[in-house]
């Protein structure tokens, strides 16, 4: 009886925070998106203002291209590294590797990006020789607009993927030894075990990772914003949709259109999550 009430207590604290900092601001953003500066209902006009803005289409393209790079590299590398880690577990190096993978993620987000600002500047970078080998001698050459999706993917991977590797590793550990043993007896090698047993059993975790990474990726903001500041504008301060929303709100003093952009992002995130969940049988009981 008492333990049940304690449970409500824990959930209540979370629920209050979720309402205060999740649902209320979201509801308020939706209200803004459908009203004008004076608070009267304006239908979809804020949405059409946003979509017809000359910065909107490039921003959508930038984010789409970035998402492609980021999601593909995330799935391939995170799953690959987790499998490798799992394989190495018996040899006693996995603990060190898990720590190593996790370290970048433990750095505060902005600090991680700051580290990359140094890494990408050939004058001060510890890997300047690599940058020079690619033919880049100045910061401006490294952060050329065409490189940005890959650079943001690198930064995001470095800061965010370690945690997912640890999660996947945990999920791999949950696969019954009997199943793996049976596969081995049937003659499956490491590759076949991974492809036919482990990856299918990781499917829900991969979908979960994709949903969160997609939602996070559409909100691309800090990487381009910091890079823009560091490059004094060369990297573009309206590169992503979130930056565009920020510009609408605080450069053009148009909070309503800014809210419309964020509501669009929310809708896209929800729809994509819905598709992933429906297609993957995410909520099916095992």
């Amino acid at each position, binding site marked *: 009886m008492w333990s049940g009430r304690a449970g409500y207590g824990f959930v209540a604290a979370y629920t209050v925070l979720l309402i205060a900092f999740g649902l209320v601001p979201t509801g308020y953003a939706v209200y803004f998106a459908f009203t004008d500066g004076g608070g009267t209902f304006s239908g979809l006009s804020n949405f059409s203002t946003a979509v017809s803005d000359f910065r909107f289409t490039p921003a959508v393209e930038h984010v789409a291209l970035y998402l492609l790079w980021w999601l593909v590299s995330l799935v391939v590398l995170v799953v690959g590294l987790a499998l490798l880690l799992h394989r190495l577990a018996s040899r006693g190096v996995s603990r060190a590797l898990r720590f190593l993978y996790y370290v970048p993620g433990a750095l505060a987000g902005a600090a991680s990006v700051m580290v990359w600002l140094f890494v990408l500047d050939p004058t001060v970078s510890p890997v300047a020789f690599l940058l020079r080998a690619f033919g880049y001698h100045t910061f401006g050459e490294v952060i050329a607009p065409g490189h940005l999706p890959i650079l943001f993917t690198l930064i995001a991977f470095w800061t965010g993927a370690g945690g997912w590797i640890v999660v996947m590793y945990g999920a791999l550990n949950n696969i019954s030894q009997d199943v793996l043993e049976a596969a081995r007896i049937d003659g499956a090698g490491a590759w076949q075990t991974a492809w036919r047993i482990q990856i299918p059993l990781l499917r829900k975790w991969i979908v979960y990772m994709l949903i969160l990474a997609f939602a996070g990726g559409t909100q691309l903001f*800090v990487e381009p914003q910091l890079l823009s500041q560091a490059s004094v504008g*060369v990297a573009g301060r309206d590169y992503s949709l979130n930056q565009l929303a*920020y510009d609408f709100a605080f450069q053009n003093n148009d909070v309503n259109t800014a809210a419309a952009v964020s509501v669009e992002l929310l809708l896209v995130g929800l729809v994509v999550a819905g598709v992933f969940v429906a297609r993957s049988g995410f909520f099916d009981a095992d």
Partner: protein
Amino acid sequence: MTAKVRAVGVHTPGGTRRRAGLLATAGALALVTVGACGGGGGSGGNGSHGDFHPVKQTGGALTVWVDASRMDAAKLYQKQHPDVKMNIVSYDGDANGSNYLRTKVSLFDRTRKGWPDVVFSSQNNETTWAVDAGFTAPLNKGLIPESTLSGWAKGANTPCTVNGTLYCLRNDLAQTVLWYNAPLMKQWGYQVPQTWEQYQALGQKVATEHPGYLVGSGGDTWAPELYMWPSKCGANQITGPKAVTVNTTSAECTRMASLLDTLIKNKTMSMSSVFSSDFDKNQAAKILMMPGPSWFGGALFQGTFKTPAHQIAVAPMPKWSADPGSTAGNVGGGTWLLSAHSANLKAATAFLTWVTTSDDYQAKLAPGYPAYTSAAKSWLAKQAASDFFAGDISSPMQAAANEVWPGWGYGQFSQEAVWAATVTPKLTAGKTIASLLPAWQSAIANYARAAGYKVTQ
């Protein structure tokens, strides 16, 4: 031109991770939610018509926002006036177009409290939004006497004036001059160029005779102000409160574009920002000449580059041989704004007057050329006494202060940001400025329209 001019080379990246963008928005919206209960959206009562109604004067501590370079000013005032209760807040001064002040003011407008009494900004265009937002108090309607206001250099307060009402005070001028290495010029037997044609010819000579040496830098966000403005290129002719004429393909623009292209090609014009680590490490010691604002002397040569004394000299900006006289551009020069919401107008006005006119700060401590004429004279005397510069810097600086081309306006959209995002990356990729002039024009027009301007091309 909301963003934009870094006054004295402050690099201030900051922020949090991607999700923080959402968190910040959520936080902002939460604040907005609270504010909405108080009526939302409203602001103080001056508007853009000068009908200023001060809030109830309750006194109390004076809240002053300054950037790192102006911190000395606030501290000195506090030291000299221990009886004034001051709350000195350090912020980025809107450097690099951070728009921090505008963002905060729009939130304060909603929560109806929190505005600073006096604030420094490294942007000259704050009045383009601050007057409409009702944030700034009119200064020439009884707050500061005309006898004081007449002491500013001619045209210095133009960016602060809206419909004849003065809404801010210019801190420093940032007129462009030609900085050059006097001993090196002498040693190599070169004459300081008086025309842009001579400047280009000298650049070509340097490329063959002393490769690696520089005659300028076009890699900064303020390249348009340094080169296009003094060439009288009409990229940014603000013709009304919300009207701009943009023409980047006139002869005045193409002549400078072609000059820059020639010098970029022969590598005597650097494509790195003068405040980048790359420039500092590889090129700072290779400057023969460099067009730059008056603050380059202290902030760049003396401060960042640690150039040895008696090397750097100042000449007027070159003129085009077809033009009657020399024309200067302008790169920055900050402003001080007084809040219309201040409950302590008397103390705020006293501080504002002191900080902009006092020799103790403007002449003795300030890094930039003071906009207040008598302080500028003392500042120049101090520069002369510092024994850092080669020769007399006073006359070319004073002359340039009166030669800034008035055709380049202070709009709400950023010329620097447009140039940085549109032109610089393509220059890095090997295109010429001449070929990018139409793209530059359409980008300016797009950003101007987005900021609500009627654009004539």
